């Protein structure tokens, strides 16, 4: 095992996160620490000065072992995912590399698909998630999926269709689930129009944002306590009722975090 970001400019934290080099400076999924480090250096001004991200509760993030961070999702482009991953990279201690799970159409996108792979993003297949969790990595998933980013502005902070794959994975691999409420993203870049006929590169629709750039709404990220299903056997992952129950528990915890986060917020830009 190697350490990430060792040879790249401006490591984001004193401790470099562990990185499984497949022999040529990349991991099996295409993550390249040098590219990730450059992306962190580029994204940091947005994180610190534009969105002025504040986060709470990251101290309870497990330092090692398989973790699934489950968050709400919104926006024309996944800026919320980028800020959440930056926050995990910059503030988790010891630093853990987040492996965001993207929709399956992402590998079809020229340039973007390759770039995202270099940054640690993986396509949302069960086998990919299994492999990463078995290696004790930290996944970032958005169970709302496309319905989350497609929700109208009036439905902001209301969780949409809630897939249960994260609960099944957590049960099967004894992974801790950490709910993360991202407050601010849902007002930052609302979608005005979804062109559903324009299925470019397999994307379900083409988003037309209400503003040319995301608004500088302050992001507040609230991490919940890790939820553990270790008292249940791995075979429980095959029981649809148990999986649904676990997924509902994660959803309830996330909704509570969102409520608390919205209540604590003093204003959109503060």
């Amino acid at each position, binding site marked *: 095992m190697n350490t990430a970001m060792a040879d790249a400019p401006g490591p984001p934290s004193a401790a470099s996160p562990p990185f499984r080099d497949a022999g040529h400076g990349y991991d*099996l999924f295409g993550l390249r620490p040098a590219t990730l480090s450059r992306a962190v250096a580029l994204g940091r001004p947005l994180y610190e000065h534009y969105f002025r991200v504040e986060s709470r509760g990251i101290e309870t993030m497990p330092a090692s072992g398989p973790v699934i961070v489950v968050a709400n999702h919104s926006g024309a482009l996944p800026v919320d995912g980028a800020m959440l991953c930056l926050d995990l990279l910059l503030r988790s201690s010891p630093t853990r590399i987040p492996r965001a799970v993207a929709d399956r159409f992402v*590998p*079809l996108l*020229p340039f973007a698909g390759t770039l995202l792979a270099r940054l640690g993003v993986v396509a949302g297949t069960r086998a990919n998630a299994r492999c990463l969790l078995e290696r004790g990595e930290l996944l970032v998933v958005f169970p709302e999926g496309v319905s989350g980013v497609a929700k109208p502005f009036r439905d902001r902070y209301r969780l949409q269709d809630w897939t249960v794959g994260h609960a099944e994975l957590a049960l099967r691999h004894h992974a801790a689930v950490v709910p993360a409420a991202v407050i601010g993203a849902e007002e930052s870049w609302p979608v005005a129009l979804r062109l559903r006929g324009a299925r470019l590169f397999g994307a379900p629709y083409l988003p037309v944002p209400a503003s040319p750039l995301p608004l500088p709404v302050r992001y507040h990220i609230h991490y919940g306590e890790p939820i553990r299903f270790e008292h249940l056997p791995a075979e429980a992952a095959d029981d649809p009722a148990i999986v649904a129950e676990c997924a509902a528990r994660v959803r309830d915890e996330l909704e509570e975090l969102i409520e608390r986060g919205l209540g604590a917020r003093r204003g959109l830009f503060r």
Partner: protein
Amino acid sequence: MRPLVTGATTPLGGSIVRMLLADPDVDHLIATGVEREPPAGILPASSRLIYQPVDLTRARAAHDLLFGTAQDLGVDTIIHLATHRSPHGTRMSHRLDVDAARELLLLAERLPAVRHLVFRSGAEVYAVRHSAPDLLDEDQPLELDPRAPASVRDHVEADLTACARMGTGRVAITVLRLAEVLVPSQGSQLWDYLESRVCLRPLGFDPMVNVLSLDDATAAVRLALRARDGGVFNIPGADTLPLSRIAARWGRIDLPVPGPLLAPLYRLRTRVVGLDFRYDLNARRFHFGGMLDGRRARERLGYRPSQPIDWPVAVASPARRSELRVDRLERESTGSHKE
């Protein structure tokens, strides 16, 4: 053990024959190839080695081999490596890749001494799609698209033929789906791709590719022979890197080109230069990768890739680059230089 190795005149066949001859448990070994005499340097000289030229596309020849020399010698293990090296699916390649494999599987069952058959398959049998996982395990869908190139369909049919016979008779069948073995004359499309000075790839895509060394492929066969209980196993290699890095490490110029232009450009190049590389065979892999997950082979055979490819272009680590820079400065300051 008394093995019969088909396709022994390929680099992989030669390497496996050498490995078997180094094993004191191997009494005698029959190696077959289509050549009248084995190419120089491929097979070692040994009193325990019997080379027999056989055209396996002729059912009678295959029958006579098994019920002649093989039966007389008490062959108990068959390692079937013979596949057509050309990527252009032809009637002859179908006869070798599919018909000969089927015939061999049937004949092996009728030969009382044979207990184990190792069948060499490859990563090309898997359907590579954008929606597939990055790592393909043995349960992933195979390439059954009727529009797939004929040579791929032949390999899938042969693989499925071997799999379909598993557990139906007394012969244990092991199917090894090897990652691309990066050597010449082995039917490696990646090798053919790297034969060009300029390697074109789809603009905007740089998939991760896994390659297998001859030593690791040989080790996998050795472990499969030892396990003897059959099954399907992916055999990945020790090198996983982006396609662009493969070209660079091979000393080639990596040139991204808009995807739709690649097929006609490579067709034109094949017509003009006569390369064996076919873009249509590799189009999906050049977009989405599709590497083999070797977990089952690791758990059941104890296989772990350990021998990386001997890349022609070495890439020094940053620390080593710094050392080299210091060395150069020192040499320049003392006025010495490398001859």
